[in-house]
């Protein structure tokens, strides 16, 4: 298959000559310059930019951000220069809309800062209770380059962010019945998606599940409706799509990622907030085995090194790394997880409670490599999501290896 695939692309070559191609580029570039010169820029939101810059000049990661919940050192790393750039302006201006549309009167959104470069910008906002107590943090970011991506595991297009910030009724935030943050994003685009309203409701965002992308990748071919009923799993993120009367429900975040709904709902759910109601496995020295597929679909039972196991009332987060020393002739890039892990919670009475895979991602480790990160929902026998009392939970079993939780 590979030979035919490669052979096919060998034959896909441009038809115009290099000279013609270059002439077209020069002409387009010239036209673009003329257009830009004739374009009136929006007035800058000087107040917000100034406030953001002032915060940043105090120093990221120091007392200026100490009251926030987010780990700004982790997020921003060494890229801490604030730029009064077009991208920054766009993001911080977007925060005004964001603030305006917060529906729950008990909470407020406070722009905290913007950082980055002309091409790669992050804006951070704190969501706080009205009495000033921080609740969680929110990030919008726009990396044109890949520099910030490795920190965030993701990226977003500036155009997407513009769509977000110029959309109507963009975000409503409230606290759901489980005490978790709920985001309802109503997007009625004035350009690409005229007449179509997409509503995405995110609830129960887990610790470290710090990004979700929602993008309607191709409304022409309507891809996301093709497989929309193919899944019946439950996840922490339910999305409802209303498309010209069509009402469908996404129940699987992996589907949302699969369909590239990278549509600017990026949440950093505060680790410190989540830590208050989270069990962890302290002894993770024992590894478990996971089934992976090699490129040729051959199965491989691969030992896994556990990095972290967290359990909260509604889900499990598992971070692990494949032990590639067990397969020295295989590159990690050739492997695909079978995603068939059997993860069960065990109560003090010995009762077993099921979980169901919901989200797979990666998390950079201290060596610049990547760990596998998977999230599970806690479910009943009918695969309906449930919440458990963490006081009842004693241990977790992963592919028949048990870990004590505390």
């Amino acid at each position: 298959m590979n030979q035919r695939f490669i052979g096919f692309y060998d034959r896909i070559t441009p038809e115009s000559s290099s000279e013609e191609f270059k002439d077209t580029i020069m002409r387009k570039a010239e036209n673009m310059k003329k257009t830009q010169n004739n374009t009136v820029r929006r007035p800058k939101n000087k107040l917000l930019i100034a406030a953001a810059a002032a915060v940043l000049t105090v120093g990221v990661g120091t007392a200026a951000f100490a009251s926030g919940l987010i780990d700004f050192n982790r997020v921003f790393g060494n890229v801490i220069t604030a730029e009064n750039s077009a991208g920054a302006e766009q993001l911080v201006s977007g925060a005004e809309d964001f603030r305006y549309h917060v529906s729950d009167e008990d909470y407020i959104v406070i722009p905290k800062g913007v950082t980055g470069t002309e091409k790669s910008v992050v804006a951070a906002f704190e969501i706080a209770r009205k009495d000033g107590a921080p609740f969680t943090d929110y990030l919008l970011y726009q990396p044109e380059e890949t520099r910030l991506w490795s920190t965030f595991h993701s990226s977003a297009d500036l155009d997407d962010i513009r769509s977000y910030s110029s959309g109507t009724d963009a975000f409503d935030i409230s606290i759901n019945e489980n005490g978790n943050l709920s985001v309802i994003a109503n997007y009625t685009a004035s350009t690409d998606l005229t007449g179509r309203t997409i509503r995405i409701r995110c609830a129960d965002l887990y610790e470290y599940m710090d990004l979700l992308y929602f993008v309607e990748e191709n409304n022409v071919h309507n891809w996301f409706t093709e497989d929309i009923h193919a899944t019946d799993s439950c996840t922490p993120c339910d999305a409802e799509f209303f498309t010209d009367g069509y009402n469908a429900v996404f129940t699987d975040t992996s589907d949302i990622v699969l369909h590239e709904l990278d549509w600017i709902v990026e949440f950093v759910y505060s680790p410190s907030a989540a830590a208050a109601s989270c069990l962890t496995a302290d002894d993770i020295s024992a590894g478990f085995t996971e089934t992976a597929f090699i490129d040729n679909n051959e199965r491989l039972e691969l030992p896994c090194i556990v990095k972290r196991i967290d359990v909260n009332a509604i889900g499990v987060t598992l971070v692990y790394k494949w032990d590639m020393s067990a397969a020295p002739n295989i590159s990690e890039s050739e492997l695909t997880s079978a995603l068939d892990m059997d993860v069960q919670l065990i109560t003090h009475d010995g009762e077993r409670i099921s979980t169901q895979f919901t989200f797979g991602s990666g998390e950079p480790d201290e060596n610049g490599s990547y760990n596998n990160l998977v999230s599970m929902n806690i479910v009943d026998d009918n695969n309906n999501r449930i919440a458990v009392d963490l006081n009842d939970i004693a241990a977790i079993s992963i592919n028949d290896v048990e870990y004590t939780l505390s």
Partner: protein
Amino acid sequence: MNGQELDKHIQLYRSTVYRLAYSYMKNREDAEDISQDAFVKLYISDENFASEENVKAWLIRVTINLCKNMLRSSQRKTRSELTAEPHSPPPEHDSMSEYIAGLKPQYSAVLYLFYYEGYSVKEISRMCGISSVAVRTRLSRGRTMLKEMLLKEELL
């Protein structure tokens, strides 16, 4: 960037950009448009690239964004609706071109970057702005889809 540098980058990367755009757009007209726009962005960019490989990665990233934008745009929809004739197929039209045309862009693009350009999963994940797991998933599903299509062909 001056004209001479532009020349050099066109020689080096035009085919890569064109093929990647083709893997998304499935037709030569849009692939050519996207290629032009990607190189225009490069030409007017004030980026300081540390290496040639960075130029290539930057172009790939820009190309992906342009393709996504075009796929989303109402302009494309209008053009598709107004165009009476279907997009011209590759001159070497064969079953493989039909199979690749049948693949969703997110699969064909990842397959192209992995198998043809030889990028690693991590590199692709950075370029496409998706997780490594998502890249692996797309590779696996894309391969499976292609295999199934090819198997059907052999059975016929």
